[in-house]
């Protein structure tokens, strides 16, 4: 518990001050203050007061909460452990983040199934738009005043709301799927883009607009992603991003899989991030279970996470160059990527999705001789990165194509919930690994690169520099890998170390239970966020004291970033839009989950 005590102390301190402050200002309008094991202040408030409270938290509280980090719902109807929480059949959860005060706050609104309505907060944060649409899509909760409360992740013709407990989780619980011609025509018709629905005009005084479907299959949208463009010639008047083509229901699966068997699904959320996706999930479960992992585990986790960060950034770098028409860099970058994957494979046994972290540790100890190959990489890579600087970042045409394109300010980044390199490119030095070190990042010496213009070029430059910093971190991991166990000695560590089961009956029972049922995590709520490859990725887990999660909320950076595309690309040309899309660095699996 030492680690969590260290980290949560400053947050808990501001948390207590904040609780006093909010209780003073809002008095009995606060229905309850819920304790959670992550120490994040959690207020319950009635829906008539939600806007006032959020506005006060944004504008007047100390610290001010600049960003609406997440909005989601919980279907509370079959939840057993709700001690001290106001009666609710559904809950809407707002998660705000403060960058000036480096803390978070959670606000919850209780709702009844017969009257699932509350006011929209789009006028406070434009980023609320998609989050509210998703909450409506998944739970049927209506946000009054929302301009486009349409389906966002599920198909427009879907019946029901997928994350409600009565909705089936498996295809086998539903009728076999079939698609006849009439049905197909119906589905096609539903996908047709109708500009009027989005408040767009078909013509201006001088010209008729062209509406162009960029996607869902297009060479530059990096997956199945559609943007409906309103074009005047080649100039972009407006755009409507349309997501959901890569939706697999990961959050629903979280309620179905055991705590342990959900780990491989997390790998596939940001499919370029590999084990970096496991990290927030296993840390969240460990926090609820009260597991303190050994130093060696922390360092191994950091080393592999940074390797995946480099892999992901390399792919970004190459496709970024390719999207501005440079054919070759991606092929060079795949050479390094291959090298790193080879190392990862020799450690984890798999390449892109090892699913290698475990609750309370990692799957295996590092293999013999692992340092040799990692050191080779550390020698080989810096000079290649310098070559790429010559090839891509110093190229005149690349500069002309990307500098001054798609720029935004820090305030816009707050408004649209942009995190990660996209936020640091605006000049804010804010990296989760530095601001709230987790898994032992506080022991490492590295810098947080920032840029000032916030344009496409800067977003790329930041990631290039981050690769160098990641190499520094990996080097420190190799030089100082602590000795010790690769799994925590705790009954909820899953699976526990087999060797120890033969020595005492307690461990044998625990082993038997955790490999047959899976671990039972005590009822609690927790949010754990990490600096993922593309921004801040967080898991909000609700445990109801069972072998599965009651609610798994996966907040991904790409989702928020895509929402910003129209805002930063209006007035540019189609070719610029491609550069902007490339510079955002998203993965559709990370957007749709």
């Amino acid at each position, binding site marked *: 518990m030492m680690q969590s005590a260290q980290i949560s102390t400053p947050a808990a301190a501001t948390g207590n001050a904040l609780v006093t402050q909010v209780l003073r200002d809002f008095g009995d309008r606060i229905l309850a203050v819920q304790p959670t094991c992550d120490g994040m202040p959690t207020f319950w408030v009635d829906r008539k007061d939600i806007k006032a409270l959020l506005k006060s938290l944004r504008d007047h509280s100390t610290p001010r909460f600049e960003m609406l980090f997440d909005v989601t719902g919980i279907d509370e109807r079959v939840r057993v452990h709700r001690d001290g929480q106001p009666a609710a059949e559904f809950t809407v959860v707002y998660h705000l983040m403060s960058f000036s005060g480096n803390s978070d706050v959670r606000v919850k609104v209780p709702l009844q199934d017969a009257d699932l309505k509350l006011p929209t907060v789009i006028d406070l944060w434009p980023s609320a738009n998609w989050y509210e649409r998703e909450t409506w899509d998944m739970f049927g909760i209506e946000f009054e005043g929302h301009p486009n409360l349409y389906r966002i992740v599920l198909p427009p013709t879907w019946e029901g709301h997928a994350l409600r407990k009565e909705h089936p989780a498996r295809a086998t619980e539903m009728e076999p799927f079939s698609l006849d011609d009439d049905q197909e025509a119906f589905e096609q018709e539903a996908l047709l883009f109708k500009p009027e629905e989005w408040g767009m005009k078909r013509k201006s005084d001088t010209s008729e607009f062209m509406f162009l479907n960029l996607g869902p299959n297009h060479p530059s949208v990096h997956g199945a992603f559609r943007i409906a463009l309103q074009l005047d010639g080649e100039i972009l008047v407006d755009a409507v991003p349309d997501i959901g083509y890569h939706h697999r229901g990961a959050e629903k699966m979280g309620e179905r899989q055991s705590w342990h068997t959900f780990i491989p699904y997390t790998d596939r959320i940001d499919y370029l991030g590999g084990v970096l996706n496991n990290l927030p999930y296993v840390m969240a479960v460990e926090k609820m279970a009260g597991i303190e992992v050994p130093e060696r585990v922390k360092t191994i986790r950091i080393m592999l996470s940074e390797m995946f960060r480099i892999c992901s950034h390399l792919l970004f770098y190459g496709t970024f160059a390719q999207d501005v028409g440079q054919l070759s860099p991606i092929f060079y970058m795949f050479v390094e990527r291959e090298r790193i994957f080879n190392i990862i494979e020799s450690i984890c046994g798999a390449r892109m999705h090892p699913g290698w972290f475990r609750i309370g540790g990692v799957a295996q100890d590092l293999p013999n001789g692992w340092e040799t190959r990692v050191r080779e990489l550390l020698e080989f890579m810096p000079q290649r990165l310098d070559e790429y600087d010559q090839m891509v970042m110093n190229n005149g045409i690349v500069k*002309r194509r990307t500098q001054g394109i798609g720029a935004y300010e820090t305030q816009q980044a707050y408004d649209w919930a942009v995190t990660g390199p996209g936020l640091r490119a605006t000049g804010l030095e804010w990296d989760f690994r530095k601001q709230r070190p987790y898994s032992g990042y506080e022991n490492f010496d590295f810098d947080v690169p920032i840029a000032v213009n916030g344009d496409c070029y800067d977003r790329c430059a930041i990631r290039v520099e981050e690769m160098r910093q990641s190499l520094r971190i990996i080097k420190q991991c190799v030089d100082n890998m602590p000795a010790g166990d690769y799994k925590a000695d705790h009954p909820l560590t899953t699976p526990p170390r087999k060797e120890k089961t033969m020595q005492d009956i307690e461990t044998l029972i625990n082993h038997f239970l955790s490999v047959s049922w899976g671990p039972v995590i005590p009822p609690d709520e927790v949010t754990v966020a990490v600096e993922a490859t593309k921004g801040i990725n967080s898991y909000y887990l609700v445990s109801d004291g069972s072998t599965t999660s009651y609610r798994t909320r996966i907040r991904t950076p790409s989702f928020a970033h895509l929402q910003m595309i129209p805002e930063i690309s209006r007035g540019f040309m189609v070719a610029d839009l491609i550069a902007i899309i490339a510079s955002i660095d998203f993965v559709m699996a990370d957007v749709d989950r």
Partner: protein
Amino acid sequence: MTLEVGSGLTIGLILGTVIVVAAMLIWVERRLLSFWQERLGPNRVGPFGLLQVVADMIKIFTKEDWVPPFADRFSFVLAPAIIMTVILLSFAVIPFGPNVGVVESNIGVLFILAMASLGAYSVMLGGLSSDNKYALLGSLRAAAQMVSYEVFMGISLLGVVALSGSFNLRTIVEAQEGMWFFIPQFIGFVIFLIAGVAESHRLPFDIPEAEQEICAGYHTEYSGMKFGMFFVGEYLGLVLVSSLITVLFFGGWMGPSFLPPIVWFALKSGVFIAFFILLRAAIPRPRYDQLMSYGWLFLLPLSLINLLVTGAIILST
């Protein structure tokens, strides 16, 4: 049996060689690109993957030749035929060697410029008749790009014409006996090279078919052999531009006598073909409006000044 200009045998040989070379370029380009990009490229079919072209041809000939129901059928079919025809016709006036060529024409340079202008119709018709928004964007870009770059292409050639005093390409080659024209006409050469890339719309000037932006641009809706004709047409254009550079600036077939003239011609053209492929591997694509303003605001004045200076020097000597 000797080769002479205009004989049936010569015409047949030239036509055959040009088409085979253009087809083989598909393999050459893929192998060269792979070589420069640390990968292998097609190396499975036949020795060094040489038969890859045959495999590609079989595939493309046997593919369903689909015309979209919403397309304008007549111009949709006509468009790929135009590009093949005008580029093959352009080869008629190229002097490949002292006795090798299809026709003697006193207006060779003008003929080629005229054919290049007609080539723009192919791209425009292909895009417009497809009734596809990406194709429309592609053909709009193509029309603007080809029309503007023809201007500089024409003007950059005028220096050569002034120096040799003829529009006849054979006379132009013969006029380079003492000195190849790329020395006195270096600026003209560079402008022609750039305009040549733009005319054959290859990366970095492949804006009409920029894959990352507008899928495949004007030939988005094409498949089977009609697509193949656009594809081979692009390589024919590459061969044509390389041959033209050889003829206009690098002394055509001339070279030390240990190799026959036609080999010199082939070698020189080959170097430029490889150079164009290298360009594709190395340079990113500028934006459409950047390309336009680069053309009109930089290349046009430069080519005019080049012509003015050339004229002044000719008059003063």
